[in-house]
């Protein structure tokens, strides 16, 4: 866990959780949704790669309730980049599913349909 009061080593310490790796195996958008898979749920304490505790925490956060990368990072008090590396590892091991957001730049028909859903959803609020 990063210590907010610690003036030095702010870069090194958060990434100790990822053994110093700052590049994720998968680019994950800040609003991408993460959901624990059956495999992730049953993996329990046997987390692979020595990240058992963090993996377990993420798996329980996203079990039956999709959460964005931003939410996971905030709830675990981890910097975004650290959470991204951890989630990318878990996705590669099949412990979580990652649902990337729909881009509003590429496919017009898909984007427009989604915007209409957002609009009617907001009106229903």
């Amino acid at each position, binding site marked *: 866990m990063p210590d907010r009061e610690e003036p030095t080593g702010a870069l090194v310490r958060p990434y100790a959780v990822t053994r110093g790796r700052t590049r994720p195996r998968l680019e994950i958008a800040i609003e991408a949704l993460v959901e624990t898979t059956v495999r992730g749920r049953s993996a329990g304490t046997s987390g692979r790669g020595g990240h058992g505790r963090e993996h377990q925490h993420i798996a329980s956060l996203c079990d039956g309730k999709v959460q964005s990368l*931003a*939410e996971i990072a905030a709830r675990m008090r981890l910097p975004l980049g650290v959470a991204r590396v951890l989630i990318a590892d878990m996705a590669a091991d099949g412990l979580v599913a990652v649902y990337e957001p729909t881009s509003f730049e590429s496919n017009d028909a898909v984007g427009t349909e989604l915007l209409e859903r957002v609009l009617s959803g907001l009106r229903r609020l």
Partner: protein
Amino acid sequence: MSHRPGQQPGGRVTSAKIVIAGGFGVGKTTLVGSVSEITPLTTEAIMTSAGVGVDDTRSVPNKTTTTVAMDFGRISIDRDLILYLFGTPGQTRFWFMWDELVRGAIGAVVMVDTRRLADCFAAIDFFEHRKLPYLIAINQFDGQQYHNAQDVRDALAISSDVPVVSCDARNRESTKQVLISLVEYVLSMRRTRTGAPA
């Protein structure tokens, strides 16, 4: 990407985001909190000097790190669609984070305090440069409006089609209307674009 087969029979779950920008203390987190289904959360990103594009770090002898905090909220639109509202980091010099925030966003709400209009100039410049649709939301502190919408539009020198609306960031209905106005604006822009030759 690791989609489990058969997990989403009714279509895949997906998310979208709207960026909430404006100067420090203009009410971004208040606006997010008034419609979010969760208490606004704070997420942090770390920038190293290696990631600095515009900041001048020559005066700093060693590699430096800066932590940037962003508040955000969540609205479940329906079972398979979640909308996130991300407040921009207070200081506009943290462009590296703005890049990530605007990527794939529906659009942005630029919140304006008419007593400190200049605070939103950098955000407007950034969204115009990135061609991200935005609207201006004048936050009416204490229910008072110090300028009318046309004065604000003139002062900001924005295009006549950019919507300028008033809001009370504390009020859920008011915030809802701001978001609805933005999405309607984005949809109308798309329809115009579709009608025009490619």
